[in-house]
């Protein structure tokens, strides 16, 4: 009676739930190891910068967070597009699961940037193009989450969220270039980090390791969250009942 495709569609969150459960510890583990390595590089291998002294060490959390905040938005929009195209519930759930982590990392990059700006530029905040677009990215995340929170019907919440994520991703380049242009027309504060050539390699390595750690963490967090969402959505289904009974 049920076609193979339907069966696949129904069972997919169930299998994914179990799969995610098995993967999560590994990603957390990888995040912890990479994080430890990254912190070691940041604080012990990377030498002191002769201009900024120790303040520049913020780069090791700031840049990875900034990279990941943008990357996660793109991944989120990708899942949203998949969901809209193929009507797979799991894709929508992945998109919703990524948003809070992405917003958190955006906030981290704003926060660390501000803390870096005070000693280097003498101001917590300037209306520089890059800063402004990161701020707008934060608003885009918040809009996505607020819209989903306001809709009670999960099906509508999924689709509406997916659409706004896609609209946002089309707009992000436009926003980025407009902000850039806006800023360079006036004289803005110029960000330039002076670094000795020998330092560059260590710094790059540190940032890359930290970025990988953040990446692993983001995957782990998103998978944990998607498991919660699956459980909430599928709580009426057979497999959840069976799973809960098996646990007892």
């Amino acid at each position, binding site marked *: 009676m049920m076609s193979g495709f339907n069966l696949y569609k129904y069972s997919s969150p169930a299998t994914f739930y179990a799969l995610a459960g098995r993967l999560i510890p590994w990603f957390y583990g990888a995040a912890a190891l990479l994080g430890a390595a990254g912190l070691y590089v940041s604080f012990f291998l990377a030498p002191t910068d002769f201009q900024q002294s120790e303040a520049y060490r913020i780069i090791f959390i700031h840049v990875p967070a900034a990279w990941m905040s943008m990357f996660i938005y793109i991944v989120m929009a990708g899942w949203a597009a998949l969901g809209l195209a193929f009507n797979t519930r799991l894709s929508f759930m992945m998109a919703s699961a990524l948003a809070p982590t992405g917003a958190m990392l955006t906030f981290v990059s704003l926060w660390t940037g*501000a803390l870096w700006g005070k000693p280097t530029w003498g*101001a*917590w*905040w*300037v*209306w*520089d193009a890059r800063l*402004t677009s990161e*701020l707008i990215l934060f*608003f885009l995340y*918040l809009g996505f989450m*607020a819209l989903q*929170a*306001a809709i009670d019907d999960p099906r509508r919440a999924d689709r509406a969220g997916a659409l706004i994520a896609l609209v946002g991703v089309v707009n992000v380049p436009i926003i980025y270039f407009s*902000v850039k242009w*806006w*800023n360079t027309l*006036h004289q*803005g504060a110029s960000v330039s980090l002076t670094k000795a050539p020998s330092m560059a390699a260590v710094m790059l390595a540190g940032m890359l390791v930290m970025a990988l750690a953040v990446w692993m963490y983001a995957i782990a967090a998103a998978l944990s969250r998607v498991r919660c969402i699956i459980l909430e959505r599928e709580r009426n289904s057979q497999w959840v009942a069976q799973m809960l009974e098996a646990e007892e």
Partner: protein
Amino acid sequence: MNAISALLRRELTLAMRRRGDVLTVLFFFVIVASLFPLGVGPEPKLLRLMGGGVVWVAALLAAMLSLGRLFAADYADGTLEQLILTPTPPVAWITGKILAHWLVSGVPLILMAPVLGIQFGLSGAELAVLMSSLLLGTPVLSLIGAIGAALTLGLRGGGVLVSLLVLPLYIPVLIFGAGAVDGAISGLGSEAHLSLLGGILILAFMLTPWAVAAALRISIE
């Protein structure tokens, strides 16, 4: 007294259950304040001069948009009639509701204001003045706004209409609030402005609940 504290608890519980609505107003405040530098340009000196005014205008607009929550839900589901029919004097529970509204939509603005102030390059002392002016001013916004909210209950186009009724009444608060911050920036001092704001607050606190009670009676007929 018991009824009022029950009402306050209820309002705060409801706000917690609907956290999204509260946060949305807060972020509206942040976004509107951030629009200005984008419109006006990133010049730090110019922005510093505008800072107080912009944060205040954003607070005005956010307060105005949050008025929709004050009575509309209670009106729609019949709770408002029930409140009117309690033995508690209307002025008492109306004050309670306005207080709850301020706690939920005014206080977060005050707490968020320094962040915005920093974006405009305000210094520590100026931020303190900004926060005190908001502390004295936002309750007035809730009080005056309640009159508009009560009068437009159930009317179509309520959102825009309420802004038309309420914004002109907000202007004194804006002038003294932003004036306090300007005074701090220019070194002229801000006590005068702040004490005027305090005066308006006391006046509004004593008068508006009566006006709101009258407005609610009219709207509920």
